[in-house]
């Protein structure tokens, strides 16, 4: 593919607000996971963003207020992102900048709260519950477009835990079809009862902080966060700072099972192979793979198998879920931003909380920080429904 330029970007998760705090926490190996104490639920650990629930939205209708949009708004205010989008808007025009965002559950926490306060006679939710502007999936891009003053076409992508990775691909389709000149790509997902209790019901929540790739791993820690990039054609706007380039992607389905990955990893291998092909790279030209690495027994084993199939032990890999928890639909954009941070600072972080790497694993799993120039990173995301997305980023 013709590479696209990333001319602005920001990230928000339990480990920090913005790129600098994120880099510090990754380098210091400082996890953001804390014992879960959310909406009365105390199972396992979570990667919670402090103050998310009390943040006041800037410059948009208050009807959009929900935890998911609060995270999105906090992210917009970081790293000069909103200003960078304003600059692009002046150049291209507001109607030439699209908004393509991924989320798995949008503002469902607002619907959960509404169900706690139903009218005892009619069963109706309270008047203050604004379903369209909070719970509905389209709430997120509508809010972000309003927040950033953008008037290009907007889209909500909801492919479970691959949502904001897949959003890059859908953004590219609109960009290359000429429907826009730049796209705000990314996403947000926020803590809610549904995912905390749902993953617990599936037996997938770890009692301890998640430990991806460890022999004794027992599941995920749920996290939350948001992130955005501004994506545009290379060289189209002189004077724009280029943070990195997006050079390849592969997307696939497992066609296997709704909530268990294919143990043969055919879909994951297909996505990674396609990403290499589109980038015109062979396996030796990657410096690091940021795994989906959720910390469940089956995901990590499947992914190790997939990575080893394509790369052997030649490319170091790790999961950053030990820092943030599994931020579900936001994990793709959050880890894409981590990739940019690593390439800028020249390091690859090893998995956190690992006592012993799963002895059945064959790929080159890092458990300590590797300080070295990192030019190209592959970033994986897989989700329920058997949806896979692999992205390749290149530093500048």
């Amino acid at each position, binding site marked *: 593919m013709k590479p696209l330029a990333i001319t602005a970007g920001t990230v928000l998760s339990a480990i920090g607000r913005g790129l600098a705090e994120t880099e510090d926490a990754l380098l210091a190996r400082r996890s953001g996971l804390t014992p879960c104490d959310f909406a009365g639920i105390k199972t396992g650990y979570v990667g919670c963003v402090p103050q998310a629930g009390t943040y006041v939205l800037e410059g948009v209708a208050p009807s959009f207020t929900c935890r998911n949009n609060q995270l999105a708004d906090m992210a917009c205010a970081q790293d000069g992102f909103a200003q960078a989008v304003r600059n692009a808007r002046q150049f291209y025009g507001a109607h030439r900048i699209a908004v393509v965002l991924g989320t798995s559950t949008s503002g469902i926490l607002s619907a959960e709260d509404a169900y706690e306060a*139903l009218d005892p006679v009619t069963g109706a939710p309270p008047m203050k519950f604004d379903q369209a502007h909070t719970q509905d999936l389209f709430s997120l891009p509508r809010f972000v477009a309003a927040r950033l003053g953008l008037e290009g076409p907007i889209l909500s992508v909801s492919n479970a835990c691959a949502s904001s990775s897949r959003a890059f691909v859908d953004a590219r389709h609109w960009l290359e079809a000429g429907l826009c000149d730049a796209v705000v790509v990314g996403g947000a997902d926020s803590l809610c009862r549904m995912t905390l209790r749902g993953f617990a019901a599936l037996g997938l929540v770890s009692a301890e902080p998640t430990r991806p790739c460890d022999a004794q791993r027992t599941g995920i820690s749920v996290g939350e966060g948001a992130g955005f990039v501004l994506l545009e054609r290379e060289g189209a706007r002189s004077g724009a700072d280029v943070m990195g380039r997006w050079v390849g992607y592969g997307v696939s389905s497992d066609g296997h099972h709704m909530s268990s990955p294919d143990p043969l990893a055919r879909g994951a291998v297909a996505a990674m192979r396609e990403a290499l092909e589109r980038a015109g790279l062979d396996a030796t030209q990657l410096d690091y793979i940021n795994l989906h690495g959720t910390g469940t027994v089956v995901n990590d084993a499947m992914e190790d198998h997939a990575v080893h199939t394509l790369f052997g032990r030649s490319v170091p890999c790790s999961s950053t879920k030990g820092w943030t928890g599994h931020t579900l639909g936001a994990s793709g954009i959050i880890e894409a931003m981590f990739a940019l941070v690593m390439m800028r600072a020249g390091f690859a972080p090893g998995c956190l909380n690992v006592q012993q790497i799963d002895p059945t694993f064959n790929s080159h799993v890092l458990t300590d920080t590797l300080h070295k120039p990192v030019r190209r990173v592959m970033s994986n995301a897989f989700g329920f429904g058997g949806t896979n997305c692999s992205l390749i980023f290149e530093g500048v």
Partner: protein
Amino acid sequence: MQVSVQGISVWGPGLSGWPHTARVLQGQEDWEPAPVQVPPATCLPANERRRCGPLTRLAIALAEEACAQAGVQAADIRGVFASSNGDGAVVDSILTALSTPGGEVSPTQFHNSVHNAPAGYWTIGHASLAPVVALGCYDWSFAQGLLKAAAECVVENAPVLFVAYDLPIPGPIGKVRITHNTFGCAFVLVPQARQGAVCTLDITHAPGAMAQDTTLPPQLAELARSNPAAGGLALLQQIASGQEGTVHMTCQPGTILAEVKPC
């Protein structure tokens, strides 16, 4: 963006498959609303068929008919699945469990609650490795989905299955997000017309003014307003007419224009 329509499906009240719907839209048959009964999802193994709900069965019925008409292999085709409400019954059931003391969230319902569940079942049914995206764009799910599917078809230079579908939501959410009817439609879009193509579509996006065609007869116009996926009815009517014409569909923000040329 120019694409060709190689296959179509429609299921809705009193609209049973594309040939029947085309006759209704052409005025050859009266529209007689009746409960929607889609064909069974025979592509799924028995255990998966038990686990999936009416939303997935609707989406699969649409996808099957459109692919069969187009003569494309279900296992090979990229998918764009668009739905505003997702599986409202599953979400309502989970929210009820969460707000009931001692209520347990069902693991099967939890994995069925993801917005890409119908797409997931579709790929499981056909052991497909082809990518499918699930979109949720509220009242504009049909128009945004069409814009996305056409762009993917052109940019990837590959056939794309576009499926739009929605069901009424039960329970408290259904009191504020009102969807009156079951409706879905599907299109197989191809970059270049092949033998048997129905029409070509030239699709453009006008970001400014909002416009929506109102050429449907009153009852069908009401149906079009009663379900996000039924926003496709104006386009379906133009296609069924066998005449050239341009259809306007409100999107977010602006208008999508689809210039229809019969093949």
